């Protein structure tokens, strides 16, 4: 099943895309595993996800942790720690 990924701030700049549709292998079950899989997709992804600790994620617009399951997700967002206000 395809999954929509969206990127913000420097994650977006490093990946070089605002969003994309992907089809991860069935073995990728969690957010952390998805990050690991994405990092192997090329130089720009390796750069964007070089330090998974500073990557925040949201599944269908809710903050999630690295060990959250991605099953059933329609949209997953990756971004740096928030700096609003």
């Amino acid at each position: 099943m395809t999954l929509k990924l969206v990127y913000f701030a420097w994650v977006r700049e490093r990946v070089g895309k605002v969003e994309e549709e992907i089809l991860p292998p069935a073995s990728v079950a969690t957010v952390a595993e998805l990050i690991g899989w994405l990092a192997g997709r090329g130089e720009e992804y390796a750069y964007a996800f070089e330090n998974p600790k500073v990557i925040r994620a949201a599944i269908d617009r809710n903050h999630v942790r690295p060990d959250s399951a991605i099953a059933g997700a329609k949209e997953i967002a990756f971004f740096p720690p928030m700096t609003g206000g």
Partner: protein
Amino acid sequence: MTVRLQREDFDAAAEAAKLTHGRTDIGAVVTFTGICRGSESGDPIKALTLEHYPGMAEAEIARHVDDAKARWPLLGVTVIHRYGRMQPGENIVLVVTASSHREAAFAAAEFLMDYLKTRAPFWKQVEAAGEKSWVAAKDTDDAAADRWSKSRDAAE
């Protein structure tokens, strides 16, 4: 409750007036206005660009306003967060809280600002001396936001 994300500037006084108009149960109104400063960590800046996650930002803020209303007896809350490019001196964010008494109004305004600084999906990019850089999250902001979950745990 009013939650708005917008490019345009806001009018803090008009927003506060909307909350209190025609009511006599409100005894305290707190407004917080966040303004773009002319320097960041000592270096002069030319402008700030705020990126946000459309759809998520509005829903997340609304959820936190609901949370604030569950914690404190609020009679009105308005949150407006701008996005796009802003120059020093321009408004960035507005939080207005109204209650019968000052304690709730102050606490809720601080709670919402701590939240907006750390958990709302916004990212600040600074333009300084021709270079653009993303603002790093501050540990002090995280600590400020954390105190609310601690006090909640203690109350449970």
